[in-house]
């Protein structure tokens, strides 16, 4: 329970030290259980029952130009403890200053990064300087430690072994142009380990393997242009400085043929991209290219019908994906087909969601079925996969809602997997 106390303490502390202009708080608490029958296992544990709870916490305190933001999650096993049985995660925990001195945005703490090639969750500092008559020149610089993948606040590595810093310069053009130039320098040192190796005459010897080396350095260019407010063009080029390789390139166009008809086309170049000094960049491998295009048509009644075809070109092989479907605000149906190297599949999915009783009760349902095989040369039989979900949301007042949901899964591993979830959501906004 220590982490929960930590969360509550942090919130309490933040509220008290901040003369808040407003507080925004959201809390969700869910419990779900499932019973599963494993048809392929001969052990006595083939049938298992689980019950788990999880909570989400969102907390903002705003005071003028300053904001304190926390987004956290806890979970625990109520029966049949798995692993630690309890986990906590802080996705966000930062202080933000907006438009300071009419020039600067600042974020300090755990935050998500969106800066061209610089991306990830960072425990550190992010500054954005905005200048020009319309703030059209923006320079962002950031630095810190990549957040641990557990999102906890434990076992932080040494800064010399794990760091991430970089910058992005963005120019927002006269009207509808955005061009961004970005740089990222990231080092994440893998865990060292002991293992057995052979010496020159094939005698086994114990070796300590410590992978270390330069940091990964990336540079990127993003360009986005909108013509007449309805035709969009986007392009990016991302380059790995250490490996001296272009690892991503994209050209993307979205054109309005008529008010209700849009076409899009996209080309992607992808070089397999691994962490620098990974075992995988020493092997012989090939790049991928992807082409895709499609249409969207909007009917006057709000329904959108769409179709899309994409093909990936591998070395001496290819794979095709076809999607078609329709949707409106309350329901949707789609068909997806795969052919070629990636596997073969025919799948359908549909969903429906609507109010049952005005302002108070709503329901949702979804089904998904596919018949598929992974890989086109080594799997002969196709298998079935089905999932269905039915749920209701009761909202007696805007701030409070209660959810109940049942789910059924049938797949290649589990003959049946039924789950039931119930929980409540509460939010509060308070001005001072």
């Amino acid at each position, binding site marked *: 329970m220590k982490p929960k106390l930590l969360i509550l303490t942090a919130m309490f502390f933040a509220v008290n030290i901040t003369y808040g202009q407003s507080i925004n708080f959201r809390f969700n608490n869910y419990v779900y259980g499932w019973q599963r029958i494993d048809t392929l296992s001969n052990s006595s544990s083939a049938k298992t029952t689980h019950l788990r709870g999880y909570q989400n916490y969102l907390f903002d305190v705003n005071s003028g130009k300053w904001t304190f933001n926390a*987004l956290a999650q806890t979970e625990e096993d109520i029966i049949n403890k798995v692993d630690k049985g309890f986990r906590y995660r802080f996705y966000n925990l930062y202080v933000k200053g907006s438009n300071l001195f009419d020039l600067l945005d600042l974020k300090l703490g755990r935050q998500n990064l969106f800066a061209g090639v610089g991306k990830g969750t960072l425990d550190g500092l992010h500054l954005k300087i905005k200048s020009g008559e319309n703030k059209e020149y923006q320079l962002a610089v950031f630095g810190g430690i990549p957040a641990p993948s557990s999102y906890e606040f434990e076992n932080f590595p040494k800064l010399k072994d794990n760091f991430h810093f970089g910058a992005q310069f963005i120019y927002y053009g006269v009207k509808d142009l955005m061009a961004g130039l970005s740089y990222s320098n990231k080092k994440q040192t893998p865990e060292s380990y002991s293992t057995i190796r052979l010496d020159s005459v094939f005698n086994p010897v114990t070796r300590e393997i410590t992978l270390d080396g330069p940091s990964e350095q990336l540079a990127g260019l993003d360009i986005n242009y909108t013509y007449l407010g309805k035709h*969009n063009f986007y392009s990016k080029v991302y380059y790995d400085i250490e490996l001296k390789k272009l690892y991503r390139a994209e050209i993307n166009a979205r054109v309005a043929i008529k008010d209700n008809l849009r076409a899009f086309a996209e080309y992607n170049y992808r070089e397999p991209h691994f962490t620098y000094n990974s075992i995988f960049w020493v092997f012989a491998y090939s790049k991928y290219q992807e082409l*895709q295009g499609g249409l969207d048509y909007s009917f006057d009644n709000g329904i959108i019908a769409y179709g899309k075809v994409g093909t990936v070109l591998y070395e001496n092989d290819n794979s095709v994906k076809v999607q078609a479907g329709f949707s409106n605000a309350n329901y949707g149906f789609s068909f997806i087909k795969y052919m070629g190297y990636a596997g073969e599949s025919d799948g359908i999915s549909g969903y429906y969601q609507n109010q049952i009783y005005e302002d108070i009760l709503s329901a949702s349902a979804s089904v998904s079925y596919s018949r598929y095989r992974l890989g086109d040369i080594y799997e002969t039989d196709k298998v079935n996969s089905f999932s269905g979900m039915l749920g209701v949301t009761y909202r007696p007042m*805007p701030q409070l809602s209660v959810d109940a949901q049942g789910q059924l899964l049938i797949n290649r591993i589990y003959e049946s997997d039924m789950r039931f979830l119930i929980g409540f959501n509460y939010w509060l906004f308070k001005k001072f």
Partner: protein
Amino acid sequence: MTKQQKGMVFASERNDNSKLIKFDHKLHVTDAEIKCADCHKNALTSISSKDNLNPVKKDCAGCHEVNDEKTCNYCHYDGVFKKLEAPKSELIFSHKFHIETEKKQCIDCHQELDKVKFSKESAAGFPSMESCYSCHNSQKASNNCESCHSNLTNLTPKNHRSVNFLNEHKMSFGVSSDKNNCMMCHSDNFCQVCHSPVGFKGNNSKDNFYAPYYTKEGAVRTDRAALQKLTTAHTLNYKFTHGLDANQKSFECNTCHEPQSFCVSCHQSGGELITGFVPTSHQVNNFTTFGVNTGGGLHSELARKDIESCASCHNVEGSDPTCIKCHFDNDGVKGTHPKTHDFGFMKDEKGIWHETAGAVCYTCHTDANAKPNGISGVGFCGYCHGQNTR
């Protein structure tokens, strides 16, 4: 930027009273200087968006002789005497609160009605969500969806339902320095549901196969994925079918998932595997062939074609990669071990093997001279410096 992009309600989507009555806002408001509340009397006390706040006959009677049948046609079309319609609304809204407590003027939200005849002719006549957001920005007022929207099942904008929206949303975001209007519905918290490259490390063991990583509660709760509360972004059976997308490159999996920590929690060799988990490809004859010049079998072909697929299982931190079982070079003699590198690999590079014993090269090259500053011409160093190769 189009009206639609700005979130404006198209005139065609509004109720049209122009066929029911002859009327001119401009004439009344600008020329006659009549206040809004003189006609829309109920607006001052209305606490529900479902109220019809259009004037009724008696509201016009202050200025117009409504009982003189000879002058009906001044306002009414022949034979048309219907109550004015109000647009259907699913908003939680109180005019009374905004006027009395927040001291808002009608014109603050209903702009430019003094320049048109009917409200439907003015793009800004009915407030767009952008104008609400000027206050409902989580500072002056709440921007929780539920604070204004009573029905959360139909809020997904049209353009979000495009088949290519996942690929295209970056084209909308960032075309202007105010980042369009994404922030009206989505905070930073929402973006990281997908854009968390280090994220969502699951204990994908057999007993812990469905871990909730549901973080969308901080944002909009109307999309299909969000309604499947035990998943974040994928369908419930995605654990079984995700290989199709992974091979097809339909999505950049590493936008959300770090393969070294996420994929291997299920896929690692020797871990607690899901029953029946080993890929079928690995079970075919000659998946791996042993011996120099055998070509390596199917695994070699697949690796060359799609090495990312290999890495998703075999790139494990803190232990030997499976590749090491065969791809090792313990004597530093070229040509006696499985072919690993392309011809000329790193031939002209100033590689990190010169700089650090932590270079990945020394994971496989383990002869005594395989180290930075080794003896030229011996073992590993002999590949480039001197000749001891066969």
